[in-house]
């Protein structure tokens, strides 16, 4: 055979080393926040550090046991982002309570949500032994996505916070079901497109150089997409509708290999953006804040504060705990990228963006090496939605594009976002474990046996 032999390597040792480095980054950030803001290392650093180390070792052992061939760098990258985010939220708690002691502290609840997220991550790795089993639940996930999106509109359950009706309050916990709907939709799109991609790409009429598929092939996916985007527009959640739309276009493109979909998607997006600008006042406010923030400093104070913060940070930053990122509204969630930029500077923000880039690279790499079409599409969709989310939120904060409310994955304060992003990483690790696992041994067997003991792994 001339084809190069694939050597399966686990690289779990490398993962352990990187995980320890990531945990160290988290603890060091927490300690230096205390040193910078209050002059002492926070009293509970040892407690927090111990908890982080225990959690890191536990996740490492779980991965070693149930997904031994999974990608070795994804987990440490995610742990480092989560640790940095926790330290920054703690820092902003200190800063905001200096302004007004009555303001809520988020660090503890974020820590609890991180623990829930890691539990979800472990649960997915243990429960989903083969990601292709998810393919049999294609339509279940499609229905679940729509159900989750409708949930906030139900009176009594849903709640409007900051002008967007995207929250569900149950038993005192508020949750954004849109985050979970994103994962469900990705699974639905992947499962549906795998079955229908040949029909979508080949059967149909060619209009203006673009092969339009038959209505019955496109129907279900278009309906699901229209419902989800429609609900989101109705709920005034612009960021998520943009994210779902991008996810939809890219998965169509990946599955059919037709660049025409990108063109169609771009045109539809342009039309949608223009319609949004013309029809909705809150879209126009965002556009104006993007094009000319200093034209109305009172209304665009948040964007302006974020820009001032980034400028204040400069190349090397003010140092953790020594800037004043707490002056920006929502500096702990939507504007956490600007807070990071102020305290860690361009150097630190670039490192963070590179970590995001590496996570996306690993996701796309998993999609490239994955041998079954469903896993390929799912990994590509999840990685792309991650990339788009980071681009939209960081681009919005740095005034590259209009600001839309999306969470910075793993860093921003917000329980649902942290939990679902950990779940996404669990799915990606599961797919990569299947992909990198060596092929089972080939042997002949006696075919005369009517029955035989079969080991199902």
């Amino acid at each position, binding site marked *: *055979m001339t084809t*190069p032999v694939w050597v399966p*390597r686990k690289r779990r040792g490398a993962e352990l080393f990187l995980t320890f480095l990531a945990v160290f980054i988290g603890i060091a950030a927490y300690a230096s926040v205390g040193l910078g803001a209050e002059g002492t290392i926070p009293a509970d650093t040892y407690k927090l550090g111990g908890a982080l180390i225990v959690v890191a070792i536990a996740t490492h052992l779980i991965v070693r046991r149930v997904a031994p061939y999974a990608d*070795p760098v994804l987990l440490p990258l995610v742990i480092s982002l989560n640790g940095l985010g926790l330290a920054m939220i703690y820092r902003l708690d200190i800063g905001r309570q200096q302004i007004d002691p009555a303001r809520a502290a988020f660090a503890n609840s974020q820590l609890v949500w991180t623990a829930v997220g890691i539990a979800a991550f472990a649960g997915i790795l243990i429960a989903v032994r*083969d990601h292709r089993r998810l393919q049999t639940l294609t339509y279940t996930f499609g229905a679940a996505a729509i159900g989750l999106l409708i949930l906030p509109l139900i009176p009594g359950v849903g709640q409007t916070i900051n002008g967007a009706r995207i929250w569900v309050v149950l038993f005192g916990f508020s949750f954004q079901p849109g985050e979970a709907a994103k994962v469900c939709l990705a699974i639905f799109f992947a499962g549906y497109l795998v079955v229908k991609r040949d029909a979508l790409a080949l059967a149909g009429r060619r209009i203006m150089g673009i092969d339009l598929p038959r209505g019955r092939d496109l129907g279900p996916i278009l309906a699901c997409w229209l419902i989800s985007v429609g609900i989101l527009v109705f709920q005034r959640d612009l960021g998520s509708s943009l994210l779902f739309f991008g996810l939809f276009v890219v998965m169509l493109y990946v599955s059919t290999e037709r660049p025409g979909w990108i063109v169609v998607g771009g045109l539809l997006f342009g039309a949608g953006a223009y319609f949004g600008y013309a029809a909705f006042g809150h879209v126009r406010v965002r556009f104006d804040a993007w094009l000319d923030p200093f034209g109305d400093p009172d209304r665009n104070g948040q964007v302006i504060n974020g820009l001032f913060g980034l400028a204040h940070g400069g190349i090397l930053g003010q140092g953790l705990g020594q800037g004043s990122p707490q002056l920006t509204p929502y500096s702990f969630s939507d504007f956490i990228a600007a807070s990071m930029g102020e305290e860690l500077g361009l150097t630190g923000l670039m490192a963070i963006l590179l*970590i995001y880039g590496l996570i996306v690279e690993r996701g796309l790499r998993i999609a490239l090496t994955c041998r079954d079409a*469903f896993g390929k599409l799912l990994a590509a969709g999840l990685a792309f939605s991650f990339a788009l989310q980071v681009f939209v939120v960081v681009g919005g904060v740095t005034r590259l594009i209009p600001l839309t409310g999306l969470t910075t994955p793993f860093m921003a304060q917000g329980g649902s976002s942290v939990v679902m992003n950990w779940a996404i990483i669990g799915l990606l690790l599961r797919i990569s474990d299947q992909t990198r696992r060596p092929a089972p041994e080939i042997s002949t067997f006696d075919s005369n046996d009517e029955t035989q003991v079969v*080991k199902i792994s």
Partner: protein
Amino acid sequence: MSELTLTLIKLGFLAVLWLFVLSAVSVIRSDIFGTKAPSTPRPAKQKAPAKVGRTKARKPPRGNPTTLKIVDGPNAGQSVPLGDGPILLGRGTDAAIRLDDDYVSTRHARFATNGEQWFVEDLGSTNGTYLGSQRITTPIPIGLGIQVRLGKTIVELQK
């Protein structure tokens, strides 16, 4: 806390952050440039059958396969010539051979070639595709005379 100490902590933290990013990149590097083939391909694989003590039933015949034949099961004796395209097996109408086997899924497994090697891939069937006692989860290269089991049906590549 003096200004100098805080600056040193700040710079040290940024250095550790970048050290982490660069070590992650160095772990990834081997993946980006592809995995290298070892000088002795898969020693573990070759040793495994001897360790179990299983005697090989027959020498694997050499040469290129030209047909896919059903050697056991309800459709035993049927065969399909191998071309360049993939061959689909299952109970559905689009399968190359329609298998009348209740334990076979509609679209059960696919045989495909890259020009020099044939592979068998399970298409998410209910009861699975087996090589020996192993349920396959990924495309597996197969040679002449290697028996693949789908439900109660056994197929193999023949000359």
